[in-house]
Every structure is written in structure tokens, then in C-alpha cells.
């Protein structure tokens, strides 16, 4: 606990917010990209700490949320097969498809297993040579090195009864899609820290330049996020638009080069559909042709599945920063984490699920956890001043 204070200290938070107030001359809308940041913001009430007119909207950076329903239905169709052991990260098991979730399939006799590492699938495949072991390879760039290694090792070790159902997505093309939308409100981004730990952040330079938008790669702890907001505001108020790194204690411009190298050997960029948003050009990975025999979509005849999202759901607009969970009539009533109707409610890192978890369906302020990062004596004045 001894290191905790510096990044959660109420006085530090108050100083950063005071700094924002000193420089801010007009309203600004910023988007945090990563679902972990969204969770931290809502849990700690960081959006309520900011000066009036500085608005945080919540981005598409929850991989479980944006995995398209068609892909989830494909996963379910494969997982129901008798000859398959279906492996997944635990987060995906509760995500409902058109007909139930992976837990339901498991309870009905499907062999569905939670794995910690994609490499666990190799062990399961070697132990079950009469079965096809299929891994649901979802995620952003942070997860890509792990998933790439499964395909690479399967080929190296000639474990030929393992395959990947790939639904990988990439952050930069999603930012472009958000900025190109005619109803875009976002003027600056808090970039995703752990994604950039893998990829570095040079690929954000052209986006920042083309749309004249500041992008500040930011951590997920409360003081990190406040600091990221301050750095973004400073650029906006100065009329600058560059990529800056708030999270330099974790990552640098280059990222993890060995990881990028293996990703490039195993995957290639492709168009991907995002749940709630639709198709975004060049926004994901698929296996390269050399790995075709490890591609579950080649092995199993799972035809294009037509799916329908509930009409009432506004998750697409929430993921693009146009609306907030409260703007949805179903939020907290028909739609809850127990019965999610759309992308932003299906995982704890989705904006709707985070709002719900911290009581914001009961009151817009939610059950604010501010007291956890700031003692009452220093937290209260900050909170009052900011309104």
C-alpha cells in the first residue's frame, strides 16, 4: 500500500483540477478510449471532479463489448458441436448471442473451457487428439501477441487439432471512424495505455495530424486520468494537436518490438465489424494465409449468420461518444448486466455496465467513490467548486 498514495491522493487531484480551471476558456469534449479507463472514471467519479464544461465521453475500448453478435453466434454454433472443445477467456462466457451464452451451452453438455493463456489450448489439444480445440481469439492489440503465439506455436509444434476463431480489433481505425462521423463531438482522446505498451504510439501521429486532434496516451489510475485530461486540455487551449505520452513510466514510443514482429508474421489487417458501430475498414486482424489450417472459420462451415440487435439499444451512439447511458430509455430497466440488450452492457468495462455497477441508474451522480481516492476534507471542496 505504500506506493498507492501518489496516484490517488486527493490533494494531487485537487491541484490538477485547479490547473484545468486555470487554463480552460471554453467547453471541451474528450473521449477515453480504453474500457479500463471508463471503469476507473465511473468508479472514482472522475467525470464529476472535472471543471464544468469539460466532458468525458466513453469510447469503444472494451473488446468483449464490440465483438459482433454474428461472431458470438458463430462461436456458439461451433461450441455446440460434439467434436469440439471450445476455449475462451472467462469474460466471453456470459455474453449473450442470439440464443443463450457459452455458460448455457456448457450446462447443456457442450465442452466449453475457460483458459488463462491461449497457450493452454495447446495442452488441451495434445491431451485430446480426437477433438478439435477451438480458441475464441478476441481482443485489442494488448491481446494480439498472446493470440498470435498460439497460432505460431501450433504450427511450430504441429498441433493440428487446434484452431482460432479470430475476431481481433484495432484502436486507431476506430478513432478515425469516430472522427469521421458527421455527428462527432470528440475533440481530444485519452489514448489506451496498455494497448500502446504493445504497439507504441507512433501510429497515432497521422490521426492527430489529419484531424487536428490531441491524443494523450494515458494510464488508468485516477491521477493518471486527471493528468491525461489536463495535458489534453492544454493542447486544445494552445491550439496544438500532437500525440503525447502521460504513461511514460510504462511505455515508450516504440512499444514492444518482439510482440509486434510476431503479430505481423501471424496476422494481417482486415475489415472488421464492431458490435454497435458496424463495419470499419482495416480495423482488425485475421490469420495470414500461411495459417489457414488453424483458422476455425475455414474448418467449420458456419455460414454468415443474420442477427438483429434490439431497436431500442443506443450502444452504437454511446461507443462513438454521441450519447451517454442515461439517454437510453432501457438503461437500468429493461437492460441490465443480468439481461444486457447491447454492446455496452455485456462486459464490466462497457460504459452502461460501469454506470450500472456504480449506481448511476439510481441517480446520475451514482454512488460516487470519490471518498476512496480523497479524504473528505480535501475531496469536498473540489467537488463543490467544480459545479
Amino acid at each position, binding site marked *: *500500500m*505504500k*506506493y*498507492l498514495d*501518489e*496516484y*490517488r491522493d486527493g490533494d494531487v487531484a485537487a491541484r490538477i483540477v485547479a490547473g484545468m480551471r486555470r487554463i480552460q476558456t471554453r467547453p471541451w469534449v474528450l473521449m477515453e478510449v*480504453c*474500457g*479500463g479507463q471508463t*471503469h*476507473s472514471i465511473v*468508479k472514482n467519479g472522475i467525470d464529476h471532479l472535472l471543471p464544468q464544461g469539460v466532458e468525458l465521453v466513453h469510447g469503444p*475500448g*472494451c*473488446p*468483449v463489448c464490440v465483438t459482433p453478435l454474428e461472431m458470438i453466434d458463430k462461436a456458439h454454433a461451433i461450441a455446440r458441436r460434439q467434436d469440439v472443445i471450445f476455449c475462451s*477467456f*472467462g*469474460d466471453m462466457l456470459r455474453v449473450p448471442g442470439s440464443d443463450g451464452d457459452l455458460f448455457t451451452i456448457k450446462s447443456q453438455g457442450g465442452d466449453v*473451457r*475457460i483458459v*488463462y*493463456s*491461449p*497457450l*493452454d489450448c495447446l*495442452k*488441451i489439444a*495434445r*491431451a*485430446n*487428439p480426437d477433438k478439435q480445440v477451438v480458441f475464441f481469439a478476441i*481482443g485489442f492489440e*494488448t*491481446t494480439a*501477441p*498472446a493470440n498470435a*503465439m498460439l497460432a505460431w*506455436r501450433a504450427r*511450430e*509444434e504441429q498441433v493440428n487439432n487446434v484452431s482460432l476463431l479470430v475476431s481481433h480489433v484495432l484502436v486507431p481505425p476506430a478513432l478515425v471512424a469516430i472522427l469521421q462521423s458527421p455527428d462527432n463531438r470528440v475533440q481530444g482522446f485519452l489514448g*489506451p495505455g*496498455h*494497448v500502446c*505498451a*504493445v504497439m507504441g504510439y507512433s501510429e497515432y501521429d497521422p490521426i492527430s495530424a489529419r484531424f487536428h486532434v490531441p491524443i494523450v496516451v494515458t494510464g*488508468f*489510475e485516477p491521477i493518471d486520468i486527471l493528468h491525461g485530461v489536463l495535458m489534453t486540455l492544454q493542447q486544445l487551449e494552445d491550439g496544438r494537436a500532437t500525440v503525447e505520452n502521460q504513461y511514460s*513510466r*510504462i*511505455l515508450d514510443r516504440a512499444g*514492444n518490438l*518482439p*510482440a509486434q514482429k*510476431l503479430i505481423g508474421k501471424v496476422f494481417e489487417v482486415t475489415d472488421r465489424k464492431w458490435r454497435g458501430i458496424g463495419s470499419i475498414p482495416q480495423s482488425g486482424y485475421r490469420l495470414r494465409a500461411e495459417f489457414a489450417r488453424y483458422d476455425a472459420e475455414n474448418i467449420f462451415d458456419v455460414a454468415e449468420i443474420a442477427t438483429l440487435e434490439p431497436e431500442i439499444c443506443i450502444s452504437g451512439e454511446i461507443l462513438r461518444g454521441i450519447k451517454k447511458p442515461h439517454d437510453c430509455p432501457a438503461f437500468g430497466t429493461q437492460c441490465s448486466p443480468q439481461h444486457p440488450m447491447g454492446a455496452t452492457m455485456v*462486459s*464490466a*468495462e462497457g460504459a452502461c455496465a460501469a454506470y450500472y455497477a456504480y449506481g448511476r441508474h439510481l441517480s446520475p451522480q451514482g454512488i460516487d467513490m470519490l471518498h*476512496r481516492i480523497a479524504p473528505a476534507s480535501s475531496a469536498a471542496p473540489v467537488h463543490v467548486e467544480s459545479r
Partner: protein
Amino acid sequence: MCLAIPGKVVETFEKSGMQMARVQFGGITREVCLEYVPETETGDYVLVHVGFAISRVDEAEAERTYQALRDLDQLTELESPVVDELEPGGYR
């Protein structure tokens, strides 16, 4: 699930030609692949995502990040079942 979790490398070893480690996260120890941070040594702290170290961090950062993730309930992936290497048909 997009956040990496810091842990301490307590043992390094080679397996099937891959650099691996046992990494301690609070009270839980898991097997982690070191191929992406090959210079890692026993005693180092690494950020680990789904069984793969993606960067090295110092002890202070590791401690702080771990506590922050615990507060956000972001440690559940560590509780995923351990899959042991077994003979064909041995794991069910």
C-alpha cells in the same frame, strides 16, 4: 480484459523452446510466457496480459498498479483454471 497485471518473476525456465516464468501476483502464482520480454530475470517485475509478459516495470509501479487493478475488480483472469500438461485423454 484490456489491462495487464503486474507480477514478480520468481523462477525462469525453458519449455518447448520458449522462455517461460513462474510469476507471482499477490497470493497467486501462474505460468507466464517471457518471449516478448526476453531479457527478463528472476526478481524482475513484469506486466502480464493473458499469460504473456508485455513489459517490465519497477517494483513501485508494480505494487501500485496491482492495488489499483484489485480495486477495479480487474484481477479475475488470474482465477482462470490451471491447465496442466497431461497425456492424451488425461484432462477433462
